[in-house]
């Protein structure tokens, strides 16, 4: 492809960004919290992709996980409970040049924000969504969330929760206009990084559910999975995740799964025997809403004013004479 001479001259020698540049404030998560692993993976991704900090936005709702934007050295928007996605959509619509990431909790996404999640999936705007699923409301100190396993004793379910857990993977795989669904676990850094990276590289709405340890309120929830590699099922494919030899040796349960195979993905999500980790579905050909709705003219303050005035004039009562 032809390159402008000015671009060549001006970009040569751009300084290399270090991981530290993507660090924001000191994380105030509990020691051992899985959110820390997600933060490290994301900062590493920003460094590896050499993202311009001014061109990156992290949007979140409310929850422990939603403190994420504070810990990034980029732009961020710590929003309202359950409303991360509409804010992110607004950002992307107006500034498609920005890289948009969303951090949301299981309560934030699957409970109060569930409707937004469904529509955001359908809009398929280009953003990377990480759903930190610790199976509990962490920030408010232990209330059962939709993903809490049946029998979870919490402040709102002191005798144990009554319902089977809601399955975010099965749910999202049934939504309209889907383009990317993956599942990661916070305790395998290599996989976590690879999956978030693929989500970022996918042009569209990348939904990544991350099983996240909350040692504070759900200390034993994922213990068995952490200790026993046999409890996981790693999804591999040349168009999905390929394992390093080291990882392949430890995690013997592997399944070759083509990310384009939606029915296969639904089957995998539907079987609870083992926890699937990898790319369940990816379809690069779904159009992005921000592309479909690209403005045809430059949005200037004058244009906005004109539009507003036209709208407001509709409500103006003009004197009859």
């Amino acid at each position: 492809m032809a390159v402008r001479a000015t671009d060549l001259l001006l970009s040569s020698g751009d300084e290399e960004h270090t991981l530290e540049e993507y660090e924001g404030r000191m994380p105030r998560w509990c020691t051992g919290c899985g959110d820390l692993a997600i933060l490290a993976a994301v900062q590493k991704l920003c460094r590896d992709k050499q993202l311009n900090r001014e061109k990156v936005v992290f949007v979140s709702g409310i929850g422990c996980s939603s403190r994420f934007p504070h810990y990034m050295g980029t732009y961020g928007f710590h929003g309202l409970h359950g409303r991360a996605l509409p804010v992110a959509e607004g950002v992307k619509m107006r500034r498609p040049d920005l890289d948009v990431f969303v951090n949301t909790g299981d309560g934030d996404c699957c409970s109060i924000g569930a409707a937004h999640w469904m529509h955001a999936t359908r809009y398929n705007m280009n953003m990377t969504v990480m759903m930190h699923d610790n199976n509990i409301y962490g920030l408010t100190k232990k209330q059962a969330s939709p993903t809490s396993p049946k029998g979870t004793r919490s402040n709102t379910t002191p005798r144990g929760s009554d319902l089977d857990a809601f399955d975010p993977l099965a749910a999202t795989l049934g939504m309209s206009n889907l383009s990317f669904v993956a599942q990661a676990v916070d305790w395998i850094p290599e996989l976590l990084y690879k999956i978030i990276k693929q989500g970022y590289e996918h042009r569209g709405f990348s939904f990544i559910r991350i099983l996240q340890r909350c040692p504070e309120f759900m200390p034993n929830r994922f213990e068995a999975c952490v200790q026993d590699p046999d409890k996981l099922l790693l999804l591999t494919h040349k168009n999905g995740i390929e394992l390093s030899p080291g990882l392949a040796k430890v995690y013997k349960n592997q399944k070759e799964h083509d990310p384009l195979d939606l029915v296969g993905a639904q089957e995998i999500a539907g079987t609870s025997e083992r926890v699937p980790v990898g790319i369940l579905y990816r379809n690069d050909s779904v159009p992005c809403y921000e592309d479909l709705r690209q403005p045809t003219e430059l949005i200037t303050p004058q244009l906005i004013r004109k539009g507003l005035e036209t709208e407001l004039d509709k409500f103006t009562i003009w004197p009859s004479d």
Partner: protein
Amino acid sequence: MSVELQELLSFHRTGKNRALKDKKEPALKLRPALFADYSQLSKLRYDYPLVLLDESRNGDHVISLMDLINEVLRLVVPPGTQGTRVRQQVLALELKIRELLRTVPPSKLGELWRRAEKDLLAHQSDEVAQQLQESWDTAWAALRVDGLVVDCDSELPEQFVRHFWRCEEALRTKRGSAKIDRLILKLGDILTVDELKSESSRTPRKLRDSLGSRYQDAFDFDIMAELLNSAAAPVRLPAQRKKRIKAALATLKSQHFFKHSDTDASAGQYGFQYRSVSAAMAAWYERLPDLVALNNAIAVAELEIDNRYCETRHDLYLGRLGAHALSPADLAFFPSYLVSLSERDLDSGEQAILMDALSSDLPLKILLRVNDILGSPSPVDAQLHNGVRGQQFAAMTVGLNDAFVVQGSSSNLYHEQAAVERGINFGGPALFSIYAGSCNMPADLPVYLSTAAAIESRAFPAYSYDPSAAGGLACRYDIEANPQLEAQWVAHEFIYEDEALQRVTETLAFTMLDFATLDVRYADYFADVPKDSWHENMRPAVEYLELAEQERQELVPYVVMIDDKNCLHRLVVDDMLIRVAARCAQNWDTLREFGGINNSYAQAAAERVSQHMAAEKEQALEDLRAQLASRPGVATSGSAPAALAREPEQDVASVAVETIEPELEDADPEGAYIETPRCTTCDECTARNARMFAYDENKQAYIADLTAGTYRDLVEAAENCQVAIIHPGKPLDPKEAGLEDLLARAADFS
């Protein structure tokens, strides 16, 4: 040798047989025989006239009237007999438009359509008129396009190329204007935000004004201003940056290359159409400093908007970025220049400038109207004359290898539109060398026919040359627009009645000689042989051209023509023209080779490879036979048995590469270590002892300083690491208290 034959031969060889020439009937208007079907062109449906679309449609800038009407008929007329009446009515209107074209001034399709309707309705009864009008209204409603209708005449090349240039430039200008407007807006935003941070933006009055009238009383703006101004002074733009942004903004706002959205559309905007290369070049150089300044301002603006401007680096570059640093990609952003020339008007000075321009990187799009392909016959008898004069500009430009070249004629521009479009978008100079008909052709010969004849006869083959195309010469040349690519000469079926009124079908080739018969300057090079003098030694010129010199002895070449009454004539051809025709054929061969057909190099290489393979195969068989022969009890025969002729199978085991799994470097079992790649950054160990445990560049833990803590620290960290990746190894200090217990606990992590 008969007297007649001698006469024929003498004309052919010398062109000077008065007796034969005098027999010619000057009143007879002869045409190449293959023109027989085209005597009334305006009654035929063919790919002209064209509609130069006002609004491009699906990326198309032009459509032929015939295609357009066909499309409409498909859309609105029921298929089969049901739609016959409406179809005929619409086709009648199309025919009328074709006729009108020759009499009315240049008009748009809409005007012509209405005019044709009016003419056709003039003598109809009300009932018929109503029917007709209904059919035409339906068709018109389905058309949905309008634009200037142009016929295939000598003006067409200019109209066509200019139209394409305008359409493509409109897109380029739109992109350019949008970009500049966006940069102006964004730079303005940076300055506005800075301005809002200034004290003067925080006066009670400014604050009041910013709120609107409704709630103004609800606030105390004096206190608000005081509060705001007592807070820490906001970070403002550094003076240098502000200056730079303002300078870039000024350049962007004062540029003349693209329309500004907020100013009068054409005020001060540069023009880009010229009638001479020197004038276009002069304008280019005069504007060059502006272009460089704008290009740099765009670079500054983009960097500033992205917050990537770094003074220590970029000041230096931008100070030095002059015209020499402009790449084709930089230039592709700016409008190109269209220069319309007529080959007739080019003096030698302007020709030299043209070649200079075509070997530069400048975005000059040059339309060259060619009016003379063959050139004048040499005044000196028998002096060699190459007959390819008209092709020289395109050929020379290809030789420069820097410019995009399109050669074609008015008649096939419609088929070469993709090449024209690519030439205009090519990031450098482009030459469109288009044959537009000639004043040396009979005045009543439609330009469509004479220009089509130029292509069909190979006298002026159509091609394009794209120097930027990857993949070798054949990819750069595109010769697809020529008819019957595989053939030396184009041939068509020709049907006539013989004296016994029997139908005769013959294949007639259309050669450069047929094209020359149209040129009045070459009239003397043909002699019409009266039918009674036709001789068995007369040969169609194409056949004659194929013969070797010694085979031509006593043969006379002729071309077939018809007169006004559609009677066939045979014209003997002067030998000088035969030589020109041979030259023309060679040219075509060369072009075809360039275009990847009958490539002599490829053919020779393929031949060599196949010979080599045959030899190798033969040798292998030979070896096998020898092997067989040496085995007792095996009879040798002419060919090896099939099983033996097979390649010996490779010994898989001997070539299989052991797949070796990369093992982690064996850690020292005595020493402490962390499986860093598996660390989940949980802060557990680093919170315990931040000097002993640290994060690496990927934010994963490793043991930074073993001496910074005790063995107890290590063991406890290992116990608390949720993914159990800390391995304490053996203690450094053998005297540490409680070692026995610690060593037992550490054993779990060894």
